[in-house]
């Protein structure tokens, strides 16, 4: 790896130096997947958060959060994953542990809550999330869930996601284990040669529907998307598929590997962000099935979609050419796709960071970006600020915590996280993305930052 610490003027936590690199300087690997430094204003979250975001889109499940109220409140319907029917997942259920539960244990209250929910909603599955405190007071979640499963004849599955037991990535892995439990079945698995599972798409703004539509059209059936718009029953069809395709490898790479081991299902890492990656991914999928009919349909679809959306992207490119983007997203895989997608728009990525990127992803990123690009892991707001300004970024791509930071700096912003408003996947998504970027980068609002009257001398 040809990255090194930017030696100039380092006013940061010394421990953080290893997590920041500038391409084109010494050979040294970036430090990532490490715990955050205590006292950091980290943009990262916890194990529960990781597990919850992966599992939450299962639409007909009761998602019961076992703990004090906060963990349920902050995750009530925040994912923006759409459902084609069931909407139980958009409710917030909590055992709302109180002081006496902390002292005497929360198992009995949990059991009561499960009973009430099972009787009221008759869900096919109930996912019971443990939070920090459950790990400490020692409630036996596994035992309660086993008993409840028997009593109500439904799947009651514990999600061992105590917040402190790791970071968000550990939460992803725990969620994948839960999914493996959910798809396990006593029934014989029927092998379906032209079926696949779509892993790592949470159907934000209906994105999984777009991709499933493409695949359907070229003659490939999607058994289930993990976990966007999935249901307990549709998840059970997963083991029969001939292939797993993985969009968000950060959250679902583990599941793909495990399913390969258990069910012998091979997997392909794909990306449907941007015209180029979408096209490539579809071709790779078609090639996998090596069926002339599928390949022909695939090419026809690509041709049609490119004809429709290519010119739109091109048109926005004219306004965006030469602008500079900064990227700070959850996983490394998305960052890689975004770098390529900005290139389609004629934009260069000058700073790129992730919350939970892995070593091999950082390697790929550094291969991809231009000399001088700053690469950083688990950044804090001051670092983001400094590098965005130093690198002269016009735009930041990030999540909810980064938005106001970008705005305060007078930079435009795109939410590529839970709060995206339009689907950003596939050909149509590439056009949406281009439009969103153009809308914010070229907004008239930036003109008013400078004017005859000061913008915001602060007068408390």
């Amino acid at each position, binding site marked *: 790896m040809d990255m090194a610490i930017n030696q100039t003027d380092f006013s940061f*936590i010394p421990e953080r130096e290893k997590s920041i690199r500038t391409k084109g300087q010494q050979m040294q690997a970036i430090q990532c997947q490490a*715990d*955050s*430094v*205590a*006292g*950091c*204003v*980290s943009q*990262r*979250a*916890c*194990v529960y*958060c990781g597990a919850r975001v992966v599992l939450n889109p299962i639409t007909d499940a009761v998602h*019961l959060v076992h703990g*004090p*109220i*906060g963990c*349920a*409140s*902050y995750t009530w319907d925040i994912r923006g994953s759409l459902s084609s029917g069931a909407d*139980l997942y*958009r*409710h*917030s*259920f*909590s*055992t*709302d*542990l*109180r*002081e006496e*539960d*902390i002292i005497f244990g929360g198992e009995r209250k949990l059991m*009561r*809550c499960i009973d*009430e*929910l099972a009787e*009221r909603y008759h869900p096919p599955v109930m996912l019971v999330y443990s939070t*920090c*405190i459950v790990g*400490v*007071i020692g409630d036996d979640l596994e035992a309660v869930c086993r008993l409840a499963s028997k009593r109500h004849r439904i799947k009651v599955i514990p999600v061992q996601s105590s*917040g*402190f037991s*790791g*970071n968000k990535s550990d939460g992803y892995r725990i969620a994948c284990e839960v999914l493996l439990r959910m798809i396990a079945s006593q029934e014989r698995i029927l092998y379906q040669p032209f079926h696949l599972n779509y892993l790592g798409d949470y159907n934000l703004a209906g994105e999984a529907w777009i991709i499933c539509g493409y695949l359907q059209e070229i003659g490939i059936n999607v058994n289930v998307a993990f976990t966007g718009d999935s249901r307990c029953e549709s998840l059970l069809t997963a083991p029969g598929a001939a292939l797993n395709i993985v969009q968000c490898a950060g959250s679902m790479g583990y599941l793909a590997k495990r399913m390969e081991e258990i069910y012998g299902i091979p997997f392909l890492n794909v990306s449907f962000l941007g015209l180029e990656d979408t096209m490539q991914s579809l071709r790779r999928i078609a090639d996998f099935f090596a069926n002339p009919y599928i390949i022909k349909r695939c090419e026809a679809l690509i041709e049609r979609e490119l004809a429709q959306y290519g010119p739109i992207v091109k048109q926005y490119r004219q306004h965006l050419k030469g602008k500079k983007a900064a990227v700070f997203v959850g996983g490394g895989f998305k960052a890689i796709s975004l770098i390529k997608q900005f290139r389609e728009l004629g934009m260069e990525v000058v700073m790129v960071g992730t919350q939970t990127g892995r070593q091999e992803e950082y390697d790929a990123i550094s291969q991809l970006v231009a000399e001088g690009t700053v690469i950083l892991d688990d950044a804090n*707001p*001051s670092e983001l600020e400094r590098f965005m300004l130093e690198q002269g970024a016009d735009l930041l791509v990030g999540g*909810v*915590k980064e938005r*106001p930071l970008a705005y*305060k*700096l007078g930079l435009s912003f795109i939410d590529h996280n839970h709060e995206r408003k339009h689907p950003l996947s596939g050909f149509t998504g590439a056009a949406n993305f281009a439009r969103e970027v153009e809308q914010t980068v070229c907004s008239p609002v930036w003109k008013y*930052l400078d004017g005859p009257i000061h*913008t*915001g001398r*602060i*007068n*408390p």
Partner: protein
Amino acid sequence: MWDYTPPEIIPRNGIVINPAKTCQPIGAMYAALGVHRCLPHSHGSQGCCSYHRMHLSRHFRDPIAASTSSFTEGAAVFGGGANLKTALKNVFAIYNPDIIAVHTTCLSETIGDDIQVYINQAQVPPGKAVIYANTPSYVGSHVTGFSNMVKGMVKGLSVNNNHPNGKVNIIPGFVNPGDMREIKRMLKAMEVRFIMFPDTSGVLDAPLTGKYEMYPAGGTKIEELIDAGNSTVTLALGSFASEDAAQELRKKAKVRPLILRNPIGIRATDNFLMAVSRATGQEISAELEEERGQVIDVMVDLHDQYQDKKVAVFGDPDIVIALTSFLLELGMVPNYVLTGTPSEAFAKEVEQMLDEAGIKGRVKAGGDLFTLHQWIKEAPVDLLMGTSYGKYIAKAENIPLVRVGFPILDRGVHSYLPIVGYKGALRLIEMISNALLDKQDREAADEDFELIL
């Protein structure tokens, strides 16, 4: 959506469905942001801090800075002392705040971390301060956390050094920066010398300058928090969010506490201004009298648009109590009143107000939005007032929603504008009557559709 809610009330035994509250630490974080150059510090797992910052970011649409002890398994087993001490050292070295306000989480509370001891052992640079509050998530709600942190400010800083400053302390309660600004404006209009804490105006409604200020210019200064011990009187607005700190000031510094409702509506604003006037000898200014007259004028102009309409109100106890009182002043019928915060006093106070108005309503503390929805299914209302979480019920039952309180996640500007004071009353009347009339216009048959209303 929301077809799951049956109208008949089934007794529930523990499960909370669609909460109307959240946990203590976020309230503590919000309060701490109202101290000048203060960095709130969350002593717990990373997730807590992340969630609170995210939630506050969504409500205020501004950056929220806060640090965390980043608990791991080790900390959960051996205690969080090492994490906190490292964190305090790092935070002062890197982020250079004047003061750190530590709050606990359910995790650090349960493993029994003694924050005071850890702070004593930590290296705090000279001239810097560390205050703290115990905010176990399994007690009370976010409002309790706010209250505890404000009390923590008094405990940690306020001193009576026998130099009376002739000032009034104002604790504004868990309200928006727009409200805090308005309270200050009213006090300035009366030429009253005051110390307000916490004060998030100029912090969470700071202007865009093209520079990111981790510590914007606003917030109560440390010197002021110390000097609060020398003030004449403390006006605590809202007993849930503000009384504890006022009582602590009485205990610690013999400052007389005066507990009032949040100044929402005519009577509560009258009471607030008169209390200020009595405490300071300052007259209520002509400017404020004029504003009061304007509100009355508007109430006369518009009373037929909203009078006798039924309203369901939910949110934080102080705000809901004050709002209920204002709705009664408007001749409206707040027949469902609910807060998520557990409390016995809440129901008593609201029931008494409803009784006096001859309204048979349902009142509940420690409730959730599933219950509120059930009430509404049983007998509908004309208007819903509360946080963004009310929008599900509003959509399912086709009831207009007036957004007040915390959090509001789906609309902007609200945090800049007041609901307190006469100006706030004017704004509330506008929101209420517009919401009702917009629905009327939208749904009117062609022959009933009118230009002039």
